């Protein structure tokens, strides 16, 4: 009979280098899912013992103690204790300690070792400690803790073979002996012991982290720090738009070529139209945004890996405090510029529940990458490519204004919410500022690959399905000769009904039609417009040859286009965001509230934009 595979869990303080160790031990063969009932990410990978036996390695969220204060830490506690549904209790605990933060990390380590579960210790990042002039004796630590200790450097794969072998040995030893919990001690006693153990294990110690101090001196400088942060953010957004262009153009050419190739090979039929107008035009118009998403995540992951993200939170704390939030909300909100889903999931590190809820509610207002397709198409079609100043184009300025509108809207809403529905004690800001580190190419590559894959999977499944469904709804029932196909279709009938409600904000039938399937995801609005105009133009050779931008220009006024843009600043058109908000808040109450207030804001903003633009005579 084959034995159950060994389950091992990586446990440790935040910033102990667990994720880097996890990546080094398991490679890219990782599975990311969620623990049932909570949206804490479950990261698992496979590792092979020298005996050939496979081990399932689980990376648990960083924690400061077993008395949990955040959903993340709660999962760590439950998994260790074997109380987490959907997760077998780990046979072996791999305790990860940061060598240069030994005394601090030994406090939680003692608490875990006390449980008497089979444990091995990875004394991680010994190279960084040595760089700081700190030499530690693993043998002394092993004697003091009573469990095997291995010095490791994840990035250089130092000590990994020994650590892996020890996982198997710890399990074998556990099978031979009963678990023996050690006597519990109080936190102050543990801290005292941690101090003693650390002092006994440290062989030599010179002046401390000079590099960090020097970097922090500049980056956290009261006057220099904030401008450095804003300059960096400016570079990030600049890069997202300029670096991505050649790649996006390349992808666009591939998508166009694919459509032409299908047109050339398949006979003229409704089926061919489904492939070209439906699938290729629809999915293709979304896939071209992959480069921008990858670039934005590249910066976010780099800021996190280097340790700068925590400094950004520190610098932003005072500003966030002004609207009743804390610097911790800055990280989820910044991630929301890529996508609100990882943004909302990143709120798990916010310990204050009211603070966290407010951040979840405003995250959808950050201009996510799914809005870019919509903004880009409309701006290119309606805003002239004029220069309004040295190096400042009108198109870029409009795009910038849309970003600012989202941020200002979010801050105002946070201010109101913190004084009404999410009222509560002033939220605090307590956060460890991790040591600076050079990110490793491998860790970055794994992170980027995971984000890109999530995006492509979404394009391949949900957007694919929605596009086909829309194409069918647009093409059936078939119109009588001489009648407009869209007006005759199911989708057209629905849109004509919705248009009555949306007429006061300047929306025509096609715009109403576009926002229905865009409920699934915002970028679908572009593919819907592309599909709609492709269907309505299919009898007209001249119209068919027109690019989407020219189609829009011939059918919409500037006021209508601006109203459409204003709508997308606020409208919560993303099923995945709503689903994530429901999971994160454990119910429909808050997502329903989010939908209601954001649609109300979108309607008001579009109404004001349309009538202001009309009154100004913008046409």
């Amino acid at each position, binding site marked *: 009979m084959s034995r159950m595979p060994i389950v091992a869990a990586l446990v440790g303080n935040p910033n102990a280098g667990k994720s880097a160790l996890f990546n080094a031990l398991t490679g890219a063969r990782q599975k990311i899912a969620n623990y049932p009932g909570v949206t804490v990410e479950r990261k698992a990978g496979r590792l092979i013992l020298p005996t050939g036996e496979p081990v399932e390695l689980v990376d648990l969220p960083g924690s*400061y103690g077993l008395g949990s204060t955040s959903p993340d830490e709660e999962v760590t506690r439950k998994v260790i204790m074997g109380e987490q549904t959907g997760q077998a209790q780990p046979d072996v605990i791999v305790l990860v300690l940061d060598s240069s933060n030994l*005394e*601090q990390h030994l*406090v939680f380590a003692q608490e875990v070792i006390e449980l008497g579960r089979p444990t091995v210790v990875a004394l991680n990042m010994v190279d960084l400690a040595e760089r700081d002039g700190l030499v530690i004796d693993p043998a002394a630590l092993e004697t003091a803790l009573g469990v095997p200790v291995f010095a490791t450097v994840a990035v250089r794969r130092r000590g990994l073979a020994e650590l892996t072998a020890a996982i198997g040995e710890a399990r074998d030893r556990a099978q031979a002996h009963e678990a023996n919990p050690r006597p519990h001690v109080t936190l102050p006693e543990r801290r005292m012991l941690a101090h003693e153990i650390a002092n006994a294990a440290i062989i030599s110690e010179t002046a401390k*982290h000079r590099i960090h101090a020097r970097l922090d001196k500049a980056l956290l400088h009261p006057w220099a720090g904030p401008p450095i942060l804003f300059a960096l953010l400016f570079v990030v957004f600049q890069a997202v738009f300029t670096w991505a262009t050649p790649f996006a153009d390349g992808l666009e050419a591939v998508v166009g070529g694919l459509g032409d190739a299908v047109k050339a090979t398949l006979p003229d039929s409704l089926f061919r139209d489904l492939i070209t107008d439906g699938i290729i035009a629809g999915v293709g118009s979304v896939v071209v945004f992959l480069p921008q998403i990858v670039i934005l995540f590249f910066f976010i992951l780099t800021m996190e890996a280097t340790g700068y993200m925590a400094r950004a939170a*520190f610098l932003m*704390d005072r500003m966030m405090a002004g609207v009743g939030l804390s610097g911790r909300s800055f990280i989820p909100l910044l991630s929301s510029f890529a996508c609100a889903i990882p943004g909302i999931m990143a709120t798990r590190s916010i310990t204050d529940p009211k603070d966290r809820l407010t951040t979840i509610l405003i995250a959808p207002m950050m201009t996510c990458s799914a809005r870019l397709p919509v903004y880009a198409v409309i701006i290119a079609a309606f805003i002239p490519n004029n220069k309004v100043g040295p190096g400042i184009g009108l198109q870029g300025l409009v795009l910038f204004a849309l970003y600012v509108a989202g941020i200002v809207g979010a801050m105002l809403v946070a201010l109101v919410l913190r004084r009404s529905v999410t009222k509560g004690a002033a939220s*605090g800001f*307590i956060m*460890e500022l991790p040591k600076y580190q050079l990110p490793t190419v491998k860790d970055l590559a794994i992170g980027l690959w995971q984000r890109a894959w999530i995006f492509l999977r979404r394009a391949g499944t949900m957007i694919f399905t929605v596009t086909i469904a829309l194409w069918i709804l647009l093409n059936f029932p078939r119109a009588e000769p001489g009648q407009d196909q869209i007006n005759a279709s199911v989708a057209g009938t629905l849109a004509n009904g919705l248009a009555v409600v949306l007429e006061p904000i300047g929306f025509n039938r096609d715009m109403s039609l576009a926002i229905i399937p865009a409920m699934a995801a915002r970028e679908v609005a572009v593919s819907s417009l592309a599909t709609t105009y492709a269907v309505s133009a299919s009898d007209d050779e001249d119209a068919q040859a027109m690019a989407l931008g020219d189609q829009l220009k011939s059918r919409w006024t500037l006021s209508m286009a601006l109203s459409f843009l204003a709508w997308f600043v606020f409208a919560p058109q993303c099923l995945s965001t709503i689903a994530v908000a429901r999971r994160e808040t454990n119910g429909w109450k808050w997502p329903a509230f989010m939908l209601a207030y954001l649609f109300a804001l979108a309607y008001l903003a579009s109404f004001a934009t349309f009538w202001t633009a009309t009154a100004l005579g913008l046409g």
Partner: protein
Amino acid sequence: MTLDQLPLGTPARIASVDWSALVAEEAQRLQALGLDAGARVTLAYRGVFAGRDPLAVEIGRMTVALRRVHARAMIVEPIIESARA
């Protein structure tokens, strides 16, 4: 003197903490980070905007960000440099 009044860069020892002045979860978090009576700390940075908030405190080889509200609950005694070692 409370921690928020400590001059930048001056090493000090936390003499006592008025935990009752803080929210229970935050008290627990500060303790978990080692900010408790007896700990040796240095105030490293202050924010620039109104209120000079937040603060960055060095404790051991770790830097912890916290708000002035928390620092105000901690009584500290500066360590005289000559008395060291």
